[in-house]
């Protein structure tokens, strides 16, 4: 609920410093809220508390060695960040990836996306004051982490993709566990729906909070579930299908209202779609190698600019690489979705109550290390 707060010199405004340590900023984000009573006049995000110079680091080591850094930008979408960077280098060096590797990348990426959405689901409801859903969501999420740990070796900051494939083939145990997980989550989703999505308090808290229009999203470069919640059917997996996404049958969930409730529903339905993709990929999984044999030891990228975009859990992720012909990139630029999504806060949250600011910031699903890089 937004109100028009009349700016009046005589009225006493004050600044509330939300963060860098605050339960609902999920990381070290700081938001300066200029308040009048319960209403927020002017929210200003302050960034830079976890800046680690990832892009600059990329200019000092061989292009391939940047892979672990990509995982540390977005600790919830690490495999998708891996995949995007691997695709960028493959595109630059003209390396073909075996089909089995592509399928494995899709499977792991989608599991990663489900894992990210499940965490968001729990954490968002925690922001709204419901303590219990996060435990249920973590319970499910743990299965994905365990499964991925078996093949990737780590639980969050994976370094699984390589230039020309993936580092380790998946085994029958992985396939079996993934299938069991799909079964399990499908059984649990109706329960979530009954317990949470149908709850009147949840709906009242989220409905008509935030007003995202396609025009606003275009102006700020908002992508991902928020853009789809505003009614634009834009998902890179469908719009410009990379990897093998064109071979799967899935939908892009969209909503029209453009509020937190719409974003909530879009993300929630994306979990189901991701499950569909994983299932189809497991069914169609081709045999063969998972690593292209002819990848040179020292990867020299031809001189030029390269770009690669993938759909991360929070929106469009783009890598931009400038090469001067050596094995060390001249410049790496990463366009991370949360940065653009956060920039919309001052406009959307103006005139909201403080509780609604928490609601709409939660709907953005911010991952702070990804904003600061």
């Amino acid at each position, binding site marked *: *609920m937004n109100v028009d707060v009349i700016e009046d010199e005589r009225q006493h405004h*004050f600044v*509330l*410093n939300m963060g860098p340590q*605050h*339960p*609902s900023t999920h990381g070290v984000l700081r938001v300066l809220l200029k308040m009048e009573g*319960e209403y927020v006049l002017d929210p200003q995000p302050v960034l830079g508390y976890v800046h680690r110079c990832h892009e600059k680091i990329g200019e000092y080591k061989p292009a391939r060695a940047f892979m672990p850094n990509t995982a540390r930008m977005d600790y919830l979408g690490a495999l998708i960040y891996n995949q995007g960077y691997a695709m960028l280098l493959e595109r630059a060096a003209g390396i073909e990836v075996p089909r089995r590797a592509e399928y494995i990348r899709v499977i792991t990426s989608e599991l990663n996306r489900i894992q990210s959405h499940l965490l968001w689901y729990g954490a968002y*409801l*925690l*922001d*709204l*004051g*419901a*303590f*219990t859903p996060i*435990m*249920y969501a973590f*319970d499910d999420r743990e299965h994905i982490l365990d499964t991925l740990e078996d093949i990737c070796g780590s639980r969050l900051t994976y370094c699984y993709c390589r230039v020309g494939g993936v580092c380790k083939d998946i085994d029958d145990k992985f396939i079996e566990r993934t299938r069991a997980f799909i079964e399990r989550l499908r059984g649990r989703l109706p329960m979530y729906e009954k317990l949470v999505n149908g*709850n009147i*308090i*949840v709906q*009242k*808290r989220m409905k008509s909070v935030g007003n995202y229009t396609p025009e606003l999203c275009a102006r700020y470069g908002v992508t991902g579930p928020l853009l789809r919640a505003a009614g634009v059917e834009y998902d890179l997996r469908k719009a410009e299908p990379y990897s093998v996404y064109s071979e799967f049958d899935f939908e892009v969930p969209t909503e029209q209202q453009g509020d937190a409730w719409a974003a909530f529903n879009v993300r929630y339905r994306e979990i189901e779609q991701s499950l569909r993709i994983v299932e189809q990929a497991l069914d169609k999984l081709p045999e063969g190698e998972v690593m292209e044999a002819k990848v040179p030891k020292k990867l020299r990228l031809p001189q030029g600019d390269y770009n690669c975009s993938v759909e991360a859990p929070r929106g469009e992720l783009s890598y931009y690489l400038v090469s001067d012909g050596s094995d060390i990139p001249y410049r790496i630029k990463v366009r991370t979705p949360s940065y653009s999504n956060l920039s919309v806060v001052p406009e959307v949250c103006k005139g909201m*109550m*403080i*509780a*609604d600011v*928490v609601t709409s910031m939660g709907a953005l699903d911010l991952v702070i290390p990804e904003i600061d890089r």
Partner: protein
Amino acid sequence: MQTLNSYAPEIIRIVMAVVGGAVVVFGNALVMGYMERKLAGHFQRRTGPMEVGFHGLLQLVIDGIKLMSKQLVIPAKADKPLFMLAPIISFAPVFLPLLVIPFSDRIQGFDLDVGLLFVLAIASINVLAVLVAGWASNNKYSMFGAFRAVAQNVAYEIPMLLSLLAIVFMTNTFSLRGIVEAQTVWFIVLQPVAFIIYLICMVAETNRAPFDLAEAESELTAGFHTEYSGMSFSLFMMAEYTNMFIVSCIATVFFLGGTSGIPLPYFEYTGIIWFLLKVYLFMFFLVWIRWTYPRTRFDQLMNLCWKYLLPISLVNLLITVVVVKL
């Protein structure tokens, strides 16, 4: 305690009442602390405390020792006397309502003619404590929490009182014992609307989720007790648990017939078993909804009170009066 009326000197009665009150307050805090953590655990597919003692039974003792040994941090720019006073204002009065609650036919401090008014009057001192705590902390979050708490408690006291008043009209007494004795049929049957209104107000009055706006931790970190640590924090906690106990007692007295139940031997004393069972049923309800529902927004909370609960309770009162007078 009334049995002692004839032969015990006044001073012994006072000592017994204080000891009894302290036992109830601390005992309830222990039971509720354990119950809340255990239930929360099971609602969330965890086990809750398991390490200290059998199924974590001694966890609260350990917690108590930890809280007592913690340093009391007073923020640099806080109003020191008020800051230290607030937990005491919050905790001290919670003994008093226990005196008039009829735990069984014989176990009651004294039967006031205006028992209900006494309980409600004492219970509303807690708001003052919250306000003082929020103000003295010199913290914007605390102040927010305090302001919210005041607005919320003042608002919800009205429908709460109105719903109880309907029963007072039926029984023609403010005395809690009188109300228990008047119930041949539990008033939950005769006054279901009043019961539901009271149930909602009860949650709001004790600042429990989904109406825990005063300590909404995702917005205000911890609300009015953000700056409190150690024992001063636990005084607030104990006051909250005792307030929950008191509102549950009132609900039991007004709607569930107080001690009435299957007669046990020495019922004038053992009636307390039924009474406490009903009280903890309400406590379970409070815990249950806290760990199930998300928090409402502040304006929604106020709308619920002023737009729905207040008119409905007024209409309910009016209908009751008309029916009683006919």
